[in-house]
């Protein structure tokens, strides 16, 4: 079995409403060393052997990420075809 780990983040120019609130909350807890917070999604896919990067990319483009406002990153592990 292969595994893909997909990280989805808002494009840098898109307002990250959650990140702003979480940053304020961390500061109010005294974690002053936090300069910025970016909220994103992490999706882990368990895949049949043989499912490759291009297919995972298609899943991201078609469903998992919203290309209008989000970027995605894929990491494949355990023998998935590159």
């Amino acid at each position, binding site marked *: 079995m292969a595994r893909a780990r997909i990280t989805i983040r808002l*494009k840098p*120019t*898109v*307002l990250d409403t959650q990140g702003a*609130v979480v940053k304020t909350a961390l500061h109010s807890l005294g974690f002053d060393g936090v300069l910025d917070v970016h909220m994103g999604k992490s999706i882990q896919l368990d895949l049949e052997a043989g499912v490759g990067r291009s297919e995972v990319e298609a899943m991201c483009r078609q469903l998992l990420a*919203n290309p209008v*406002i989000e970027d995605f990153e894929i990491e494949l592990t355990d023998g998935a075809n590159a």
Partner: protein
Amino acid sequence: MNENETPRAAELLTPEQLKQAAFDWGLTPYEYERILEGLGRQPTLTEIAMFSVEWCEHCGYPKSRNVLGMLPNTSASVEVLVGADSGGFYLTPDLAVVMKVESHNHPSQVEPYQGAATGVGGIIRDIFTCGARPVAAGNSLRFGSLSDPYTRHLLRGVVKGVGDYGNSIGVPTLAGEVSFNASYTGNCLVNAMAVGIAPTDRLLSAAARGAGNPVLYAGSRTGRDGIGGCSVLASHEFGEGEEKRPTVQIGDPFTEKRLIEACLEAATTGWIVAMKDMGAAGVTCTTSEMSAEGGMGMRIDLQRIPRRESGMQPYEVLMSESQERMLMVVARGHEDDVIRLFGRWELSAVVIGEVTDDGILTVLDGGEEVAALPAQFLTTPPRYDLPYERPAYLSEKWAYDLSAVPEPESYGEALLTLIGSPNLCSRQWVTEQYDHTVQANTVQGPGGDAGIIRVREAAPLGVAVTMDGSSRLVYLDPYEGARLLVAEAARNLACVGAEPKIVTDGLNFGNPDKPDRYYQFREAVRGIADACREFELAVISGNVSFYNESPEGPIHPTPIIGMLGVVPDVNRTASIGFRADGDRVILVGASGCPGSLAGSEYLAVLHGVEAGRPLSVSVSDEKRVQCVVRDMVRSGLAVTAHDLSEGGLAVALAECAIRGRRGARIRLPDVASAEALFGEAPSRVIATVAADRISEAAAQLATAGVPWVDLGEVGGDQLSIEGTLEVGVDELEARWEQTIPSVMSP
């Protein structure tokens, strides 16, 4: 202004380059000439940007304003509130109601969730910007065919966007509609409506006054969101300018909720001279329009505007459509008070300039002057009377022979098919995603003929709202279709016992530069105007959205009517579901209605045809029907009431049965036919009356001079129409309920 003081930035570009920039931003050569002529000099790049947004349809209404002049904005029956961002009327001497509709079609087509969410955010700001607390919301949604996966993607995103935003800020969604038609493939419609209530002494103006008064910016920081969204995104058909699509705006309901509270609290202090929300064209729109409205000018410094991104050009700051931002003029000396007040709500507010008495909007970027424009000139775009021409398809559609439509093999099957069709089936999948009980004033939520809220400050007074759109009938006859639409909205209010008072209209049309589309627009507006005058309704606000076209063609012309009425006592209203076995079911209004299958759901669903010539509504007949129904509801004589609209009599009966979870035994006055069962003639209502009061009802209907028939009685678990059909209420309900959930899950 003094020509010698031409802002320096202009010198950086050649006149040719400036002209090119103007065209890139959507200004026409004619408009560019007017700008040169009006200013008597070359504009700066920043100034061109400002003109491009202020003179676009979304802000300046150059192509619609002349036509909109037909709409009655006053009425003999209400004291109308004018001047506010969203119009309204005086519900009582102490309370004002404001209402407005706004479209967010193009943003929603690009990014359904955020497009719809920011549409709701924007319309809610229009309400509290005049000091009113938002008390109800509505939305009208139109998509391509439900069987298209992309439609489902849009539906899912739009509904979640509308819901998440409205739910977060705690405004109940009470009215709306969802419908599907292939003409919206590639260009969905998302119109959001909001209603607010304000004590009259707290209403806020949007007119800048008092030279030297500070101008404050409050709310979220400014980023590059949606730059030129109104001029570029809303002024092109889809397909023609994909690469011009700017970044979408992102909504933050959490900030909006705090803005509502801060602004409403500020409205009680007397420190606020004027307030306006930043919607389309953000800073440009608020500064110029507030100045123009007060006959004043402003001097603002862009460097003082809090930013989210670095390196923004002046024009970007001026055009940004970042959400959840407000502009205020504050009485001099109270700026710190206002800043502290916003601070308590954990919002930032900063002084960015002051009101001037020269009528000029002067924009500085730090030390440098980047624009200096007469506010009045900037906010007065040229108006166009565009060429129009009767669309060629009309004659062909009108020639369609309704008498050749075959009768269905089984009326029962036809009813089941209709009740389960995408446009008539249950909307629960949608409305359950909207909080409709928050604020604890909801007397009737979505699902009936109109939403009703109690006005706690004036209990037992209430208001009822409905939002109705029409596309097929307007497509088939723009003028009559629009009149039918106004009549239907008013009928929805009558059925809950409300007297209609004010109208807001959302006008969604294709490219106005094409004469057949402009004809549709003109005729539909004329129809709305005439009907509103006949009903004595004031159109107090509205919105125009043009260029709703995709590569496949234009949408059906789609005016949306938001209508609000008054309920004197919220304890005396009606809903649609059959209440008790033995109640008599009566049809108020005409029964035999030749030609009423024209443009019907029946034709569309069972025969795949959109054709025929819509009937003309007689407003005097309609008013008589509505009047007597309203009186019967208010006196308690009518136990339930439901207007006949799409799907006609049979569908209306089925809806009453499903909602009441009980059947009825009906006998038709005429021979059974598709026309009798599914025709969509206007001016008709089904009501139920307790059996022992039927003669009382008969007398009242006779006095009113309204035709009516006793159709039968409530009871049993079947809807049976003698000799025509017999269907179990459970079966109807199952067909009605499953359509949307079955395609939307998971």
